[in-house]
């Protein structure tokens, strides 16, 4: 079985490191890193990852807008939203653009992997 490709989108290098470590330890290939939503949209089109971890609050373009851009062109894209925020309005906004998976920060690497495994089943 070929290993699944993951793209990590977050403006914090510390978060990239933590997710990448957990992903590699669980057999995922990290095919792309992006530090804002604009980079995320471009990297998605170039690498077509199986799953994306997407932060919300980022410079240049936020994660909700980037997800909307990606899902409008690739409606089957699997995006796991990660955020320090998690109020009802924000979650409803995420759901309205097609995001169904959401994890509040802080998280452990294994939390992300469990959620990604569920998304790819």
């Amino acid at each position, binding site marked *: 079985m070929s290993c699944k490709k993951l793209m990590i989108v977050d*403006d*914090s*290098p*510390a*978060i990239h*490191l*933590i997710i990448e*470590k957990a992903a590699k330890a669980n057999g995922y290939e990290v095919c792309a890193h992006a530090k804002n939503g604009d980079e995320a949209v471009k990297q998605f089109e170039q690498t077509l990852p199986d799953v994306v971890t997407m932060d919300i*609050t*980022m*410079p240049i373009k936020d994660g909700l807008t980037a997800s909307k851009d990606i899902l409008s062109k690739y409606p089957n894209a699997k995006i796991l939203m990660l*955020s*320090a*925020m*998690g*109020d*009802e*309005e*924000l979650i409803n906004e995420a759901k309205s653009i097609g995001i169904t998976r959401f994890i*509040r*920060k*802080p998280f452990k690497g294994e939390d992300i992997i469990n959620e990604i495994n569920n998304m790819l089943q």
Partner: protein
Amino acid sequence: MEYIEYFKESIKETFEMMFDENITLDSENPAPGWIESKGVAVVVGITGVKKGRVLVDMPISTALELAVKMDSELNNEDLALYTIAEFCNIASGGAITAINNNCGQSALRLVTPSIFSGTNARIFSPGLKSAMLSYTTTFGKIDFHIGFEGV
């Protein structure tokens, strides 16, 4: 300050989840108009119905130890600064989420953190009513300055 209890709760919960260590609130006082940084300062802006900011301040040695405590590979100064920025962002996000869910019509949002590093830095915050929460941890002292316009 109206919102301060939400921040106290979120800071404690976030610190203990990220670093698996206890954090103890030593004092709560009105914040001075300026802050002389201990070495690392992170500012997270708050926008929405009310505007404000959260500033966390600590020595660089504390930032480095905390980062390594979270993950042994976060062992250089740049990664330590990003780790503390993420801590401030998550602690602020937890508080803002609770405020939005419990204090109707708040609709507050966070702005990407700004990081300041260096000695002899003074940071001014005119026009904000701020509270200073001083904490003790096994890695050193950490101060939070939480301010909002007109709260």
